[in-house]
């Protein structure tokens, strides 16, 4: 296939959570789904959406200190 090489370079990563151990799924992709997705039901222990947004803010504050921990799961 003549375009094969280009395609390989352009589509850099195709993760398959079923083919990979869960530790290899980028946390950031997981949090997109777990913090903003899923059925929202008020549990008896209530964490409001606003507080979930706070999680994102606190994550941003945390990343500088924990960056190294991520390096092994980052997409390249």
């Amino acid at each position: 296939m003549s375009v094969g090489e280009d395609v390989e370079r352009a589509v850099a990563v195709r993760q398959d959570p079923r083919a990979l151990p869960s530790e290899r799924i980028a946390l950031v992709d997981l949090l997109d789904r777990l913090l903003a997705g899923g059925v929202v039901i008020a549990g008896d222990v209530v964490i409001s959406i606003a507080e979930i947004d706070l999680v994102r803010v606190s994550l941003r504050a945390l990343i500088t200190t924990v960056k190294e921990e991520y390096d092994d799961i980052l997409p390249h």
Partner: protein
Amino acid sequence: MADVGVYLYGVAQDLSPDALRDLPGVAGAPVRTVADGGFAALVSTVDLEEFGETALRRNLESLQWLEATARAHHDVVDTVARAAPTAPVRIATVYRDDDRVRELLRERRDELTEVLGRVVGRVEWGVKAYGTPEAAQEPSGGDDAANDKPGMAYLRRRRLQQQSREEASRRLAEQAQEIHATLSEHAVASRQHPPQDPRLSGHEGTMILNVAYLLDEDRAETLAAAADELAARMPGVRIELTGPWPAYSFTELDASS
């Protein structure tokens, strides 16, 4: 464990009990089901010293705790979603006891039925597209300004740079739209997520698209082929696919394409 609560991962329909065998949940707690009328709520008993409101506020700000909990939550949902239609519930939803969960299954029966009906036989795929740094490269301004006064040349150069940046970002926006429009044809629904923070994701270039698509299971290959084809003819754009995911992004009643 004096005070305990019930952590809810999601709700599955017609789940075989075998699907849960030895599945560890959050904080290493075993996963079990609370059943009502064909629905199985996936739950773990958790210590409120870790999952009570005060504790959750604190713990959700610990990246280490959040990551461990998110991965455990995902492992449960992902495992069960392979065995039965599953509606994931947002992370950190905790009930007082099993009766409250059963009550929820009854109260939200219509909503759960609708969500499960939407995701049965379908999976979510994530598509992220990036404009590579080369795509934003500025073309040379040319040397026709050589006779200008230095100040004029500077202003002209600045204006050209500005124009070429605007042009590059307009082109990327058009490419993002084209990617989304093309891939949407393979999906029954889509949902945009905000672009990821590069400090968290470590990505290079500009994230121009972060979308989840809900697909019939057998359309995954055609989506991937379409993404390959798009990437091949957009030299400055990189496309990443992740999936299949449980349908996390399609559990809202108003989610649609």
